[in-house]
């Protein structure tokens, strides 16, 4: 690997890492602000202008609290739980393509942590590991409520992962690639997957809500039934890590939704902007600026979905456990399978027919 390429790669990874953390941090602020606005309140507005220093104040509070470990808890696992939750949440952002390519000194580097040809599979693998953080935390607490919450989380995540994977297969059949970079590149020119896969999108969105343990599927931390869910016994920064991991998951899944269904860094009129920029600023600078605009668009899309998560949270009530399971197994999985069949039939019969008509 060339040195410049290596440096750009390192910088990309660092920027992605820091951005993920900052966005997760400000999601906590955003969540409270959105909650306030939807409930006709102001939200936090005392710490800094518009309450912008609130996340720092929260973090400060978390750090200065007593780092308590219950006497009968398994100490190792008790610490491993939140660490694992945080780790898996951060790992997933490695393969997301944040922009097309960055040109420097004749080298072209993809704005992506790792250019993996099995990117989406990697995301699924890492996200599936996320349940360990919750499960270990709930188990190590040595508390029945925590354990119940953890078991709920585990069964919920496993159930919805099936429907999620099946809804994704339709996309993979269309793109015939597991690489996120390829999937985004194929959506170039307003060719977004949402227009071909509306049903798949709805299933995927619902499942990602469940995967993130967000309302209306936040049964693991259902206060009225389970005290605090799997993090009942947690306090201080360990609790902070759990909550933080949830927000990182939220951002990552928003990024993946916009990658898979909304064209990632593609936007209408992209080629025109690219040509204008390269014509006026030269191939290197123009290219880089066009890439950065694409990255901005990508973040806009991802942040919209973060907002969407919050919007849903303050709209829908929580599902009952049997309703959750019924929805997952009896509605979403059959629907996803039907979606696969329809997509398969379309790819096999409709697509050659239409292409022959057009030619």
């Amino acid at each position, binding site marked *: 690997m060339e040195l410049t390429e290596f440096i750009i790669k390192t910088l990309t990874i660092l920027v992605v890492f820091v951005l993920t953390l900052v966005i997760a941090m400000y999601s906590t602020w955003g969540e409270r602000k*959105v909650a306030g*606005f*939807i*409930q*006709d*309140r*102001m939200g936090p*507005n005392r710490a800094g202008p518009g309450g912008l220093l609130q996340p720092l104040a929260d973090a400060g509070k978390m750090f200065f609290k007593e780092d308590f470990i219950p006497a009968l808890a398994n100490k190792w696992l008790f610490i491993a739980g939140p660490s694992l939750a945080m780790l898996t949440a951060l790992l997933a952002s490695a393969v997301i393509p944040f922009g097309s390519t960055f040109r420097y000194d004749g080298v072209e580097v993809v704005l992506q942590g790792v250019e993996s040809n099995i990117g989406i599979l990697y995301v699924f693998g890492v996200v599936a590991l996320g349940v360990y953080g919750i499960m270990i935390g709930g188990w190590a607490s040595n508390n029945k409520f925590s354990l119940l919450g953890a078991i709920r989380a585990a069964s919920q995540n496993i159930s919805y992962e099936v429907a999620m994977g099946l809804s994704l297969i339709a996309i993979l059949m269309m793109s015939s690639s597991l690489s996120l970079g390829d999937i985004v590149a194929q959506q170039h020119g307003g060719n977004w997957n949402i227009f071909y896969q509306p049903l798949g999108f*709805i299933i995927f969105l619902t499942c990602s809500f469940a995967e993130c343990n967000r309302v209306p599927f936040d049964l693991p931390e259902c206060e009225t039934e389970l005290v605090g869910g799997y993090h009942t016994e947690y306090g201080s920064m360990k609790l902070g890590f759990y909550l933080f991991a949830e927000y990182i998951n939220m951002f990552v899944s928003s990024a993946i939704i916009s990658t898979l269904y909304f064209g990632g860094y593609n936007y209408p009129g992209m080629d025109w902007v690219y040509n204008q920029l390269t014509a006026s600023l030269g191939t290197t600078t123009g290219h880089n600026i066009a890439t950065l605009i694409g990255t901005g668009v990508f973040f806009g899309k991802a942040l919209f979905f973060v907002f969407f998560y919050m*919007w*849903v949270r*303050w*709209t*829908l009530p929580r599902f009952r456990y049997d309703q959750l399971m019924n929805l997952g197994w009896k509605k979403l999985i059959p629907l996803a399978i039907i979606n696969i069949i329809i997509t398969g039939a379309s790819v096999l019969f409709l697509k050659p027919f239409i292409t022959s008509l057009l030619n």
Partner: protein
Amino acid sequence: MQLTNRSKQVSNKEMTLMERAYLPAIATGMAITIKHFFKKKVTIEYPEVKRYLGPVFRGRHILKRDADGRERCTACGLCAVACPAEAISMVAAERQKGEESLYREEKYAAVYEVNMLRCIFCGLCEEACPKQAVYLRHDEFIPVFHDRDQVIWGKDLLVEDMNNRYTREAWTKEEAHLLDQKRANGEVTNVVPRAIP
């Protein structure tokens, strides 16, 4: 018996396909919440904006001066007697020669203290006062105490400031109502409403 028209008969009939699909219902709900997102917020941001409490609110005490700036209180102790919480105490003193511009009567309160923790803000002291010297302000209330010393308010805090005199613009419900009407008509009054209640 029907009390209002708002009650709805509960029905147990099967949901239609639209209702079972659930997504249209979600969309309706989301539309409602996003409408609230852009609505004007009802919050009154307290320390910066204070809500007008009405003309007959009973806030903190004030010891009035007369038009010439002389203290009205003559230390008769009727307020202390009337006080059900026994919050008021005072020490009387005789007015000396040359103090005529300070005290209205020949006897005055050298010490006048209200224990703000005992006070229940009932307003019996202002009713008992024969000299119209003590009032409960309608526009200010006591702030939070940080210290035990701050609980008992002496004359330094209670006596009226001549540069910033306290006036109350209405005394009865009827007057207050009239005043509200005047304010609604845009006729100027001496009190500017600080927030829309």
